[in-house]
């Protein structure tokens, strides 16, 4: 019988290929569940989950909450903006206070890299990392790979290019780990200022030219330009970025094959991709969102089954 090799989902680099396969198989079943007339199963009715978001989020937070509710877990959610964090409480104190209300699992987003790892070493609960700074965002990477698998049959052997703001992106790092683990080839593409130095050491290649990158790939994952994390100007203007690294319909149609367009959201329409591309049949952006719920149900279900 199969189970996850870990008790927490802190990042893709802490899990292995078997874990990914198991999560995908389980997600297949949950995808069927969420397409039923009644989209709910009672599995986790004795589990309580706290969603702690120290950073803003719409999609991820809603997706986690929906996944938890579809599994019949009890859910408490809090955002840092309205909490005692503003009064100076430490992370461990905040979480331990929540845990003393008998919470079994914590889903956390935090601005500091390693926050989820730190928490897993210091509190007694199953931790799911919903994004820690520019480090990892494992459920996003899992749902991205799952969407590729759904669209193209398998991930192994596929060529994926990650375009844009790789420097500030936790999605990029988790995706690189996840895709390589499953045997895909990864390139990154973007302005030199937004590509981390020494990224080659992760086994990826850098392609500064967007057209060349798109001609090479099967899948293009277009990252959002994270203006909120940019304290200095990394490129001259948004317009210039869109011209150099934005994908529009003309560019897409001029390629000699049909590629799959992904975007982790939220989209800056007209910057990374134009509306035409976002809404075209080559884009799987809304499938990613649907798959996100199934993947998160699978992750929570599998981790919950390991809680004693």
């Amino acid at each position: 019988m199969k189970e996850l090799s870990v008790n927490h989902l802190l990042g893709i680099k802490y899990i292995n290929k078997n874990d990914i396969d198991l999560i995908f198989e389980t997600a297949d079943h949950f995808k069927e569940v969420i397409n039923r007339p009644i989209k709910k199963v009672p599995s986790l009715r004795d589990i309580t989950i706290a969603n702690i978001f120290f950073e803003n989020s719409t999609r991820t937070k809603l997706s986690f909450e929906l996944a938890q509710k579809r599994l019949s877990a009890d859910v408490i959610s809090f955002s840092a903006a309205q909490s005692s964090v503003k009064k100076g409480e430490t992370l461990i104190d905040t979480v331990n206070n929540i845990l003393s209300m008998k919470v079994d699992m914590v889903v956390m987003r935090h601005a500091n890299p390693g926050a989820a790892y730190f928490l897993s070493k210091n509190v007694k609960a199953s931790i799911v990392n919903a994004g820690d700074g520019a480090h990892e965002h494992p459920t996003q990477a899992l749902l991205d790979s799952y969407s590729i698998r759904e669209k193209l049959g398998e991930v192994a052997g596929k060529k994926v290019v990650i375009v844009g703001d790789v420097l500030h992106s936790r999605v990029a790092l988790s995706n690189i780990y996840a895709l390589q683990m499953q045997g895909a080839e990864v390139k990154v593409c973007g302005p030199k200022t937004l590509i981390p130095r020494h990224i080659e050491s992760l086994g990826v290649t850098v392609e500064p030219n967007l057209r060349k990158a798109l001609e090479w790939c099967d899948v293009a994952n277009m990252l959002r330009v994270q203006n909120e994390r940019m304290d200095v100007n990394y490129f001259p203007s948004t317009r210039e970025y869109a011209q150099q690294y934005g994908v529009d319909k003309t560019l897409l149609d001029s390629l000699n094959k049909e590629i799959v367009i992904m975007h982790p959201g939220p989209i800056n329409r007209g910057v990374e991709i134009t509306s035409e591309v976002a809404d075209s049949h080559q884009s799987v952006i809304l499938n990613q969102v649907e798959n996100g719920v199934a993947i998160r149900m699978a992750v929570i279900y599998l981790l919950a089954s390991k809680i004693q």
Partner: protein
Amino acid sequence: MSQKVLLTAKEVTIILHRLACQLIEKHLDFSDTILVGIQPRGVFLAERLKEILENEYQTPEIQLGYLDITFFRDDFRRTDKPLEANKTKINFIVENKKVIFIDDVLFTGRSIRSALTAIQSFGRPSEIELLVLIDRRFSRNLPIQPDYRGRQVDAINNEKVKVSWKENDGEDAVYLITN
């Protein structure tokens, strides 16, 4: 470990035909009736019955679904081994239909309890019946009894009843296994 044959291939065939006839007696042309095989082992029995009904008794085509009960079980986190899910395939709404649950062995009744909850996700059936090949009587934890049974067996708790199917295990047979 010792094993004893409870039913041979020939006996299984006779019983399947009897069960098919009992179903026809009650459901006639199956116009409002749906067969639902409980995953994983009930599916073989359900497919076999559908085949016998359609090919040997010329009933019109019968709707057949597979129901997986993993996420509805009451022993999640209470067993040592993780629960493994199977595919659910129910491509129709069961609203106001007569549903027949089909499983190979009825033991504690807990799987059927879960199935009763699980089927509600697909609508409100007008009636639910239960058909099993082997009914292990005296071992029920819940007040659940079959409407159609192949054979009643008295087995004590550490004994196991194993149903083999030609398409999966190479032969049709039922064994009583004692550890």
